[in-house]
């Protein structure tokens, strides 16, 4: 082995070791109690046969649709990687501008390939009452979102192709901090860009303040996003850094009983108190660095990323890498979400409300409580409803052992055990 190769191999080994160490530390920094083992549940104890059947049917269609759409996407981008370079003649914009055009057109081709799937998804979700918008609205929204993606890819290609022009082999090294900075900027500014309003319910607002203090946070605003015209699905998110951090609830969630909303609030505050967004950014860095390196390697034979004609190929590489990374990213996401669930239970001490909330996810949002194993591993970015209820049961067992009783809700009314349904 020659000296330069040896040096490269050593550097690669060092980088890999640092990567593994950081990932391990990060994984361990996000955890539920080490000794917590989730009991095995029979979902039929919690849901009627009708509810299980309906959720299963609803999700099975979406799973097949997801698989087919990903196949179509890869096929469309492979086609674009083959034919796209011809579109260089459609540009008078120089190297960077031409790269941007090919990047945008690549997204456009991908969007076209997803169109039938998107329409079928709209049809399916409307059929089950999840989606309330019409086909035209859904397509128009997608079309406008594509405009946002165009801007994003232009910025990305500006960074990548600009750096690749200067550092053809090692652009991925300086590009990664750029990507991380852009992602951080997006996380910071997102809450200001979201169309939200203040939470009106005074009691919930007071509870939110108390929960935030309980979790060691200061005053974090709780905002409401109006989506009920478009969907019946409930959702919430923690967003922002520092002064921009806040919790955003979809107004569909406010139709839930207050004790369940409090669990959601505690879960989202849990994301903030456990610093999940900065940790997610570090995870993003860990994936972006090797990802950018692999793109650089994959495009070398096509002239590297400095060459606009390599852009269509790079899009295909990005999508394939994204699909490969999906199970790992989802595993991390599930890990983070499980911790937020645990924090919510510890904060509210209201396992009954948590259990009712998770059961409602199946009844209202048609989440299948026990999807096939491969689905849970590959596509689920939250723990399954079954796992979430199992955590509630585990929490209850742990506290019953400790206190000799189920626990008392810290906010709102006293906990009462749920009535189990017979299937």
């Amino acid at each position, binding site marked *: 082995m020659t000296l330069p190769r040896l040096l490269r191999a050593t550097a690669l080994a060092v980088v890999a070791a640092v990567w593994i160490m950081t990932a391990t530390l990060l994984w361990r920094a996000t955890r539920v109690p080490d000794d917590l083992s989730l009991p095995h549940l029979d979902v039929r104890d919690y849901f009627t046969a009708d509810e299980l059947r309906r959720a299963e049917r609803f999700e099975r269609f979406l799973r097949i649709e997801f698989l087919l759409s990903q196949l179509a996407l890869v096929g469309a981008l492979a086609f674009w990687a083959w034919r796209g370079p011809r*579109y260089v*003649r*459609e*540009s*008078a*914009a*120089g190297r*960077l*501008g*031409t790269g*941007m*055009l090919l990047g*945008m*057109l690549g997204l*456009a*081709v991908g969007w076209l390939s997803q169109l039938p799937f998107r329409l079928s998804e709209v049809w399916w979700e409307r059929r089950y009452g999840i989606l309330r918008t019409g086909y035209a609205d859904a397509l128009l929204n997608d*079309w406008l979102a*594509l*405009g946002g993606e*165009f*801007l994003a890819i*232009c910025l990305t290609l500006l960074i990548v192709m600009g750096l690749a022009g200067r550092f053809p082999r090692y652009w991925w090294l300086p590009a990664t901090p750029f990507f991380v900075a852009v992602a951080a900027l997006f996380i910071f500014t997102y809450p200001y860009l979201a169309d939200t309003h203040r939470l009106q319910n005074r009691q919930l607002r007071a509870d939110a303040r108390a929960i935030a203090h309980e979790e060691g946070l200061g005053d974090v605003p709780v905002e409401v996003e109006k989506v009920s015209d478009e969907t019946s699905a409930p959702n919430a998110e923690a967003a922002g850094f520092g002064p921009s951090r806040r919790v955003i609830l979809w107004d569909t969630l406010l139709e839930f009983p207050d004790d369940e909303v409090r669990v959601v609030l505690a879960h989202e505050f849990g994301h903030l108190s456990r610093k999940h967004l900065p940790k997610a950014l570090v995870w993003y860095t860990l994936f972006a660095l090797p990802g950018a390196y692999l793109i650089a390697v994959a495009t070398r034979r096509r002239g590297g990323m400095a060459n606009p004609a390599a852009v269509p190929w790079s899009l295909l590489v990005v999508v394939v890498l994204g699909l490969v990374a999906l199970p790992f990213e989802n595993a991390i996401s599930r890990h983070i979400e499980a911790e937020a669930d645990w924090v919510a239970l510890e904060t509210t001490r209201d396992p009954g409300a948590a259990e009712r909330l998770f059961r409602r996810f199946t009844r209202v949002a048609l989440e299948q409580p026990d999807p096939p194993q491969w689905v849970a591993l590959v596509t689920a970015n939250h723990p399954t409803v079954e796992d979430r209820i199992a955590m509630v049961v585990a929490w209850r067992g742990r506290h019953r052992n400790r206190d000799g009783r189920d626990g008392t809700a810290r906010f709102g009314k006293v906990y009462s055990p749920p009535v189990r349904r017979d299937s």
Partner: protein
Amino acid sequence: VRAPRVGGVTPGKHPVRLRIDDDLCRSRLTVLFRLLLVLPHLVWLLGWTFVAQVAAFANWVAVVITGETPAVFHGFLASYVRYTTHVNAYLFLAANPFPGFRGAPGYPVDVELPPPGRQSRWSAGFRLVLAVPAALLASALGTLGGPGGVVTVAAIGSWFAALALGRSPRGLRDLTAYGLGYTAQTLAYLLVITARYPDSHPDRLLDRAAPHHPVRLRLEDELRRSRLTVFFRPLLVFPHLLWLTLWGPFALLATVANWFAALAIARSPRPLHRFLGAYVRYTSHVYAYATLVGNPFPGFTGRESGYPVAILVDPPARQRRLVTLFRLPLALPIIVLSGVLWWLLILVGVFGLVAALVSGRMPAGLRASGAVVIRYGAQVTAYWSILTDRYPDSTPMVRTERAE
């Protein structure tokens, strides 16, 4: 052999042509009372329109059955089209003499119409539907279904100029004539006088050239359009619109600096001229791309060469201080006209999008009319940003006279 379509005009004259034999001189008295003087003609035109509608229906039935226009209907409807053009030319100050009431040939702004001939029955059968895009364009550009924005604004400008100078500005007269000519072609098509679709290419409609101007258009764009880029054109232009928005405040600051500098040294300093020239060019490239007047994705720097719908800006020249001092009020009328022409450009973009998606080509007429609007916009921007003190010229011709 197929006619060349790149840049220039496809040979083959449209059978409906506008002939201008006007010397631009205007009688101030008749200009002052033009709106009242034209009233008898408007009343007469109203009656004639009613009869013409009946005749047009009979003509349509005859053509659908026999494939030919009966001479009696053709003569009557041709006179109607001519008379409509005469009255509108008089009303919108494109001509000076009081027109006759019979629509006889010989008016200074006149229409040449083809003799009766064979027509496709299918084309005639679906004439009303086929004519919709042309009718929409004619109503914006000319006088179909009422006075359109372009001729109205041009007429208001001509009215003030003619009262002050006793002459109509040539650019405004030609712009109005262009609108009237396109309206006449559309009317002839609608009334089944001819089977030829209206052609909005100004160089084919009027046999003239735009005068030399320090801010000029060079049109080298091919008519081929990639359907993929056409379909996503409204989104592909997003990054450019964002970049243009970011550029805007700096261009405004540079304009203010340029104004002070031009007042002091009677010319635009070279760095400011270069920057603002690039801004004018870039704006034109973006608008050309957005409205399909240009095909390739433009660069982000407003380079002088490299884009096929190019705006050429002459180097800095001496400017009159008085004109510079009052630049903003002087620019107001052309800003208004430019705003009206914008609507035309939007129509060009919409129709061009549909046509290019269907055929993979941009119609030459639409491309040319869009290009002259873009050139006018560039001249307006150059005027208010003190790049030149030459007033914008609204002559809607792609072809330009050589510099003297």
